[in-house]
């Protein structure tokens, strides 16, 4: 099936190649920039476009220059495209799919006529440090600059309508992770697995093989052997189209699996025994005038295009070669029917000067004075060793002048290197080295102390070729030229790290893999230093860009529910997110819920209340240590309110604790403080008093907790309890009783009064919570029982003047300031926070918590509003609500001591700036200050 692309009328597809990865039996079509193109399964976006004769794939970032294929790999800097909703797709890596819609980026109004390419004409003005120089002054224009720059900023479009996709993550514990599936990596994986190691072999391309894939017959034969060995060796997990993006402490290795079944991407967090870095070598572009014109290509790029996708890269070629890859490209080009017009051999001192052309290459001017008209210039000037993963383990690369590239510094037990980054040599030598490294890795993964000798690879001489005598692009992604780098040095940015940041060279999508060494070479030449002395920039994670989706993965956000949650949901409760708990805020009308509690009886689900089962003879000692008040003589069946302070005297938590048996207590903590309190208890028991005989169990979830509040609370409870006497004398305020509730044994109940009403808090084994809740509502129907939510409870307790730790206190509130003076017992031997509270006793220079009433009963100043006096802040509102019981607004807040006396007039600043006058109330409680309802 030979099809010319309608849009171009060109067909550059070759006849079958022995190593091609396209499936000619599976043709398909996709669209590019609105036109339909043919492709085969196995084509990348750019290979299919190149087969149709398309040469311009994008416009460059700063100057909007036309760009085409250069590396035909993931790194191809001129081939970032938009695919459907997805921006910044690597078009030389992404496979085409039937119906795919791809568009160029950075081109407006079209790839062909890009108005912003006028930038090219302005190039002298877009000099080194362009951003820093141009958009600094005047400062008032920053918003305008931002708008303009945003219009020119690179990258595709993110669609807010893009569908949510399924990203995944998983953990792995391989003995050996091999990063790179070329010949050395495959050999290392096979040897390590044969030595008994569990191996993860990670390859960025869709298939294993590295450079063997685009090689000649001997390479293809070796490739077949190695692939068969990998398949035949048990214990190797092969991940293709995947990349090791980072190595962190403890050989924690991040792998992004780009195409896994059922998910868009998967992040694998692997704890590797040994990491083997086998990334191969990256071919380095050459710096000369016109080096970015479509038609200028690396030797590996041309060879991949010909051998993997059977695409002819051009018709008439010039080849600049300094190594065997360039020589092989000459053979491949000739074999593909390309007319190789001139071979410029850098090994004998030959060179190119500039490439000429506009949207495509027209001619190449050589150093010998000749100019050759052609549409393809292939360069093979040397290699960059991507030592990133080793650098992440602390390695600093060392420059080798003979080989004209950097090598790993070496000396790691758990990160080893093989393949091209470790040295040169024949294919056989590379495979042998990989095998030796794989065996060593397996040994070291199993015995930490094992240090095995690893043979070294030969290092071959290579000419040092970085830049011709003309200036050209160093960083293609960021449009940084060698001229700009020289200017940066002239302006004083003469270290590579400074020049990098000033010019943004190496900071674009290729992240230094193509341009880093050239940048170093240009800076070295400009400063007169050697490359070795100049050093490299530091490679940091990620090795390769990672999508936010892969990092986020499936999000785990635990939520906690009470056993009554199904009832709340079925009855229209408005959910309140309280930490991880989902609670009913109200069931429609919180004010009505308040009135129903004050006039009859209500139920609230208080299951999230922190609950601790305390057992052992030393529980009283523990309670005395934790709470600021006294606990030595809590009688059996009694309950006491307690306040905890941290060691700095700041209020930490509060709650009640009841004594259920001789050595058995139940403690409650605030819902939000439950976790902190539990760890606080354990820290005292484990570190300060390990001799105390106390067992603490967290039982928050074990019991469904329901507060029954209101004047009819006793009537309601008596309908479901018959083995506990509930009369006011038999079961008075602040007592606890065990018994059965609605027939459920193992329940207990205590009389407390957060709402200020007669109230019982019942705790039933959680599995029966929903049934007991429903039973209470059914049986209490005649009493008019209604559920109430957290909002009603907050109003009720504010009316009663009960503080909420964390709402009416903050990280600076000492017990004395919160009106808890009565609780502090400094005559106890010890308790948390005792020294600070001792020093505070008797002082009166801190804010006091008071009740407040705005004079205007309809004004509800927002919580957090400041209280001011003569322009100075003298307090703040901590809680404020409209009180349904009083029919007016009420508040609680902190005021300066001289304003704490009842009757003091204060002034609150509302968020809109208006003043709300208010008066300090006689006590915190504004409803039933004498507690008659509570004790009823």
């Amino acid at each position, binding site marked *: 099936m030979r099809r010319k692309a309608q849009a171009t009328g060109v067909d550059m597809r070759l006849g079958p190649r022995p190593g091609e990865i396209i499936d000619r039996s599976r043709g398909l079509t996709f669209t590019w920039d609105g036109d339909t193109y043919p492709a085969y399964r196995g084509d990348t976006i750019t290979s299919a476009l190149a087969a149709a004769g398309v040469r311009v794939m994008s416009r460059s970032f700063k100057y909007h220059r036309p760009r085409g294929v250069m590396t035909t790999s993931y790194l191809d800097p001129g081939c970032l495209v938009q695919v459907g909703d997805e921006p910044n797709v690597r078009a030389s890596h992404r496979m085409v799919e039937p119906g795919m819609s791809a568009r160029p980026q950075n081109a407006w109004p079209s790839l062909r006529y890009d108005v912003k390419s006028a930038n090219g004409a302005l190039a002298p003005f877009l000099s080194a440090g362009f951003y820093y120089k141009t958009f600094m002054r005047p400062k008032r224009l920053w918003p305008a600059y931002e708008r303009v720059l945003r219009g020119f900023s690179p990258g595709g479009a993110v669609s807010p309508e893009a569908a949510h996709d399924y990203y995944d993550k*998983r*953990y792995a514990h391989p003995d050996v992770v091999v990063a790179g599936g070329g010949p050395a990596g495959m050999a290392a994986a096979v040897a390590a697995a044969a030595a008994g190691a569990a191996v993860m072999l990670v390859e960025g391309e869709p298939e294993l093989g590295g450079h063997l894939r685009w090689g000649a017959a001997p390479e293809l034969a070796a490739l077949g052997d190695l692939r068969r060995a990998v398949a035949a060796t048990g214990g190797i997990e092969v991940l293709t189209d995947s990349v090791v993006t980072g190595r962190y402490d403890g050989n924690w290795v991040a792998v992004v699996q780009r195409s896994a079944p059922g998910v868009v991407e998967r992040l694998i967090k692997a704890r590797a025994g040994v990491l083997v870095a086998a990334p191969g070598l990256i071919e380095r572009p050459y710096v000369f005038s016109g080096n970015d014109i479509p038609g200028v290509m690396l030797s590996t790029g041309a060879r991949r295009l010909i051998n993997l996708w059977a695409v002819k890269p051009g018709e008439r070629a010039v080849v600049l070669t300094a190594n065997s890859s360039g020589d092989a490209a000459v053979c491949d080009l000739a074999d593909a029917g390309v007319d190789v017009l001139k071979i410029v051999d850098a090994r004998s001192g030959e060179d190119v000067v500039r490439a000429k052309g506009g949207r495509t290459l027209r001619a190449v001017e050589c150093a010998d004075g000749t100019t050759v008209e052609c549409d393809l210039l292939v360069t093979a000037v040397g290699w960059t060793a991507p030592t990133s993963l080793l650098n992440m383990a602390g390695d600093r690369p060392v420059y080798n002048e003979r080989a004209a590239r950097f090598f790993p510094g070496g000396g790691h037990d758990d990160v080893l290197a093989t393949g091209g980054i470790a040295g040169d040599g024949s294919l056989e030598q590379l495979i042998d080295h990989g095998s030796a490294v794989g065996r060593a890795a397996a040994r070291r993964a199993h015995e930490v102390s094992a240090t095995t000798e690893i043979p070294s690879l030969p290092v071959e001489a290579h000419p040092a070729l970085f830049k011709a005598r003309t200036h050209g692009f160093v960083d293609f992604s960021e449009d940084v030229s060698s001229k700009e780098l020289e200017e940066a040095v002239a302006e004083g940015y003469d270290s590579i790290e400074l020049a990098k940041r000033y010019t943004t060279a190496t900071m674009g999508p290729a992240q230094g893999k193509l341009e880093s060494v050239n940048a170093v070479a240009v800076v070295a030449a400009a400063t007169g230093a050697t490359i070795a002395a100049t050093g490299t920039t530091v490679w940091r994670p990620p090795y390769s860009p990672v999508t936010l989706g892969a990092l986020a993965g499936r999000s785990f956000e*635990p939520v906690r529910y009470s056993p009554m949650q199904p009832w709340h949901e079925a009855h229209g409760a408005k959910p309140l997110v309280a930490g991880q708990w989902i609670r009913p805020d109200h069931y429609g009308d919180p004010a009505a819920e308040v009135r129903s509690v004050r006039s009859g009886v209500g139920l609230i689900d208080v299951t999230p209340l922190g609950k601790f089962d305390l057992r052992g003879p030393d529980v009283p000692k523990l309670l005395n240590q934790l709470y600021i008040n006294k606990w030595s003589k809590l009688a059996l069946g009694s309950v006491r309110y307690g306040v905890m302070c941290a060691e700095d005297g700041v209020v930490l938590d509060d709650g009640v604790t009841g004594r259920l048996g001789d050595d058995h207590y139940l403690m409650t903590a605030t819902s939000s403080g439950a976790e902190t309190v539990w760890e606080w208890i354990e820290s005292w028991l484990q570190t300060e008093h390990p001799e105390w005989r106390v067992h603490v169990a967290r039982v928050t979830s074990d019991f469904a907790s329901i507060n029954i509040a209101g004047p009819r609370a006793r009537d309601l409870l008596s309908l479901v309890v018959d083995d506990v006497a509930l009369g006011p004398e038999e079961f008075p305020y602040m007592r606890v009783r065990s018994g059965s509730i609605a027939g459920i044994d193992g329940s207990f109940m205590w009389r407390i009064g957060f709402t200020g009403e007669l109230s019982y808090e019942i705790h039933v084994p959680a599995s029966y919570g929903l049934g007991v809740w429903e039973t209470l509502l059914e049986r209490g129907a005649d009493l008019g029982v209604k559920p109430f939510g957290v909002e009603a409870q907050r109003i009720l307790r504010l009316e009663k003047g009960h503080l909420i730790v964390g709402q009416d206190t903050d990280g600076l509130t000492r017990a004395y300031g919160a009106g808890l003076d009565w609780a502090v017992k400094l005559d106890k031997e010890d308790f948390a926070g005792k020294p600070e509270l001792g020093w505070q006793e008797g002082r009166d220079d801190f804010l006091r918590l008071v009740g407040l009433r705005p004079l205007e009963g309809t004004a509800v100043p927002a919580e957090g509003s400041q209280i001011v006096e003569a322009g100075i802040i003298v307090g703040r509102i901590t809680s404020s609500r409209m009180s349904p019981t009083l029919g007016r607004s009420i508040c609680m807040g902190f005021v300066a001591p001289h304003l704490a006396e009842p009757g003091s007039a204060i002034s609150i600043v509302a968020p809109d700036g208006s003043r709300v006058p208010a008066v300090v109330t006689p006590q915190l409680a504004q409803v039933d200050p004498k507690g008659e309802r509570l004790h009823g």
Partner: protein
Amino acid sequence: MAEPAVIARSPITPAEPPSVVDGWEVSGRRSGAGLTLVDCMPLAKILVRAAPDGAVGRWLGTPFGRAGTNPDGVLVTGSGPDEWTLFGPHGSGRALVGAVEDLSGERELVSALDVTHGRTLMRLTGAAARPLLSKLCAVDLGNAVSPNSAVFRSSVAKVITDVVRDDRSGVPSYLVHCERSYGSYLFGALLDAGAEFGIEVDGYTSTEMRGV
């Protein structure tokens, strides 16, 4: 009153069809899938705290990090350095608490707490159980670190969770339990992670503890 008509419910909504077993609302679904998740909430769960070298510790027998079945068919798991979690048939909780308390001597502090209603317990069984859990848990689940009868506590889908490897006839199987209030979330997280392996909910039967 006196009619104890209140039914016991798991925090996990039972998969259709619902059914009642031993006074518990459970799922009556029967699945033949290769990977299943069962809500085992009705099983008795007892938390024991005691010195590892004391009378109770010796009687329980299994060290921290390991599980074993005692002659009464109770699965004893060493869930902490001085802590065990016991799993018994439905309704056996009170007897188990009594048995532990009978053994505790004068000097040693021993506590036995029935946490049947406070822990959500589920069983994950199938060849893909391990790859599923490794999507949610960072602990090495391989045989070298976590062989059959291994017990550990770690984070599973960001919930602090106890995991007991308790293979069934050579098929990998894990008992997974967490604080009850997280149960519905954790059950959902396991099902979501297991979708790619074809996980199905299987119902609970009163024979759940037999043959452990």
